[in-house]
């Protein structure tokens, strides 16, 4: 017995001496939140939580620090909130002088100005809020990674579902806000990519209060669509979409921004260990985890994973590792998540959900790709005009 005990003691000593030599790494990450005016919506249901995005970053930070305590690695988050009318660029400049790591919830044009600052040279920035395709295309920046999927990744996911279901007769109602129009454009692009077309398209420009009138207005509004397989709603501002369901002239499924939705993340995702992330998040923030939270979580965890594996704290090493084929993030979506080396987009499966359950996870079976099935979603290498990652 005494001999065996000695053996254990020996093991402990060895662990201290020859174990991997992990130095102390401390990473400061800025979370930059630029407030933007949100348009008024018909319904007062579902107000946006004040801590949207930030809460996801906090959970990511906790995950990083729990791991970090075994490796003498610590992570800190400084949240910078820019009220409307305040100078986001000056704040970004100050933050980047202190640390090259920044997660942004900001409009795309603001993100681009920040990425082009001299202070941002060699920085590792994350777009956790904007789905604009141009940021992954001709407007891409080598120091800007995207954990938020592009709108097109989401509409490609939805379109794969249409193809699989053989719903080839489609119509669309689009709102008038820029976000709605961008989503509608992504839908058109995806349909073309997978060989489908829109039978008809209408613009939602009503100003009546639909809580009173939906039952009367929507049947009439959708009557002239005739017959179709599914109705796509482009209502990213969540203004009118909720009143379309069950009020259409024809009894047909509603998809897009309402009904069956292709989302970065949703509270109904519970497979692939996701239930654990959901419960961890909910316990900490007393609300369900939303897509924006997921994108912020993934950005913070990306940095955490890179620090864990490289034991480095400098931006160059971390960026190289993140874009290498060694990097993989376990993102609770059933597959390892990696970054597209041609435009910095995080490759990820897209859940197709309704409010009560997960319906499918794209890429759907049968949508093959010569490199990675996940690249059947969004801008693929041959189509991307991004050259900033070419080095």
């Amino acid at each position, binding site marked *: 017995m005494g001999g*065996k005990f000695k053996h254990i003691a020996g*093991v402990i000593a060895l662990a201290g001496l020859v174990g991997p030599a992990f130095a102390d790494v401390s990473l400061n990450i800025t979370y930059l939140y630029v407030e933007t005016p949100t348009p008024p919506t018909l319904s007062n249901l579902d107000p946006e939580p004040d801590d949207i995005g930030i809460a996801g970053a906090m959970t990511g930070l906790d995950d990083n620090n*729990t*791991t970090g305590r075994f490796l003498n690695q610590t992570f800190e988050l400084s949240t910078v909130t820019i009220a409307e009318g305040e100078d986001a660029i000056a704040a970004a400049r100050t933050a980047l002088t202190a640390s090259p790591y920044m997660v942004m919830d900001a409009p795309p044009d603001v993100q681009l100005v920040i990425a082009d600052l001299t202070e941002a040279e060699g920085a590792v920035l994350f777009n956790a809020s904007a789905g604009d395709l141009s940021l992954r295309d001709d407007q891409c920046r080598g120091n800007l990674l995207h954990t938020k999927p592009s709108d097109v990744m989401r509409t490609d996911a939805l379109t794969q579902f249409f193809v699989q279901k053989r719903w080839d007769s489609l119509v669309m109602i689009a709102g008038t806000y820029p976000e709605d129009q961008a989503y509608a454009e992504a839908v058109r692009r995806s349909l073309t990519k997978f060989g489908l077309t829109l039978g008809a398209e209408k613009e939602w420009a009503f100003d009546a209060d639909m809580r009173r009138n939906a039952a009367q207005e929507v049947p009439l509004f959708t009557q002239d669509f005739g017959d179709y397989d599914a109705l796509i709603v482009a209502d990213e501002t969540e203004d009118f979409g909720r009143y379309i369901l069950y009020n259409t002239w024809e009894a047909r499924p509603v998809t897009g921004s309402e009904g069956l939705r292709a989302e970065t993340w949703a509270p109904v995702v519970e497979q692939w260990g996701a239930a654990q992330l959901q419960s961890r998040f909910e316990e900490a923030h007393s609300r369900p985890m939303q897509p924006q939270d997921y994108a912020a979580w993934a950005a913070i965890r990306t940095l955490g994973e890179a620090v*864990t594996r490289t034991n480095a704290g400098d931006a160059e090493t971390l960026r190289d590792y993140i874009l290498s084929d060694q990097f993989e*993030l*376990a993102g609770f979506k059933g597959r*390892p998540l990696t970054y597209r080396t041609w435009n910095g987009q995080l490759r990820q499966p897209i859940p197709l959900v309704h409010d009560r359950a997960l319906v499918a996870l794209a890429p759907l079976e049968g949508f093959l790709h010569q490199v*990675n099935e996940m690249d059947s979603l969004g801008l693929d290498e041959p189509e991307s005009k991004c050259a900033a990652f070419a080095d």
Partner: protein
Amino acid sequence: MKSLSILAALTLSTTAVADEIWVTNEKDDTVSVIDIETLEVVRTIEVGERPRGITFSKDHSVLYVCASDSDTVQVIDPESGEILHELPSGEDPEQFVLHPDDRRLYIANEDDAITTVVDTETRKVIAQIDVGVEPEGMAVSPDGKIAITTSETTNMAHWIDTETESLFANTLVDSRPRHAEFIKEGSELWVSAEIGGTISVFDVETQEEKAKIDFEVQGVHPDRVQPVGFEMTAGDTHAFVALGPSNHVAIVNAETYEVEDYILVGRRVWHMDFNANRSLLFTTNGVSGDVTVIDVEKREAIKSIKVGRFPWGAAFRPTGS
């Protein structure tokens, strides 16, 4: 008359002493008992919410089940199926391992980043050890000196000194480690990484990684080849490795660390256990809700047995115990 005699035969087979495989059904709150002779489910036992980890005491006189959503480990009389009592397990117990002393249970508390050590005799918590995010895989060395917890989001194997109930080493593995086993008389530790798609082999003496096992199933994208549970054949010559959503089990040569074969089983194969002489292997297939029986020598799936919803863990119970 005919149906009566069948009934009589069925009753007989349940009372006869045959070896059994016990399977937890995660989404049914039940345990299915499979008779190894007839390869049929002969009993279904109601347990707590979301049963996952399952193991017997040394003499197989009691069964331990992690009832994850009931936040408890249930102690069950395998004869009657009755729940004898519950053990304080910490929150959300997922997997556990029984120490060779037949007394201490090392339990992974998935939601709390903690490993709880419970004395099954006094029914008290002896220690709680901080580990990484989402602890899951649990193992204990044959000499009982080292316990292992793997943490899924921290991506580590945490080495616990069972004398002091504290960590003495933490080793990184690939993404989402799920299962750990000591093999070759405790000289090697194997850890599977679901998302990483690998098994890391550690030299226990030095805690250094000495090999890494990769998998490749023809016609299945590498992302979907996700090693989870595994068990060793007699003499630890080969490992049978469940590859999750690839719906295959791999057979790994434990000397060369090369994969020799792949066997198609049910959907989302998760954990497994052998019969007494390790000639048959029983795998739980979560999505298809069944158990595949594999002939170990022929390396063939010979039968699939319908069990409850989302079968998770499997444990062998021998004759006459």
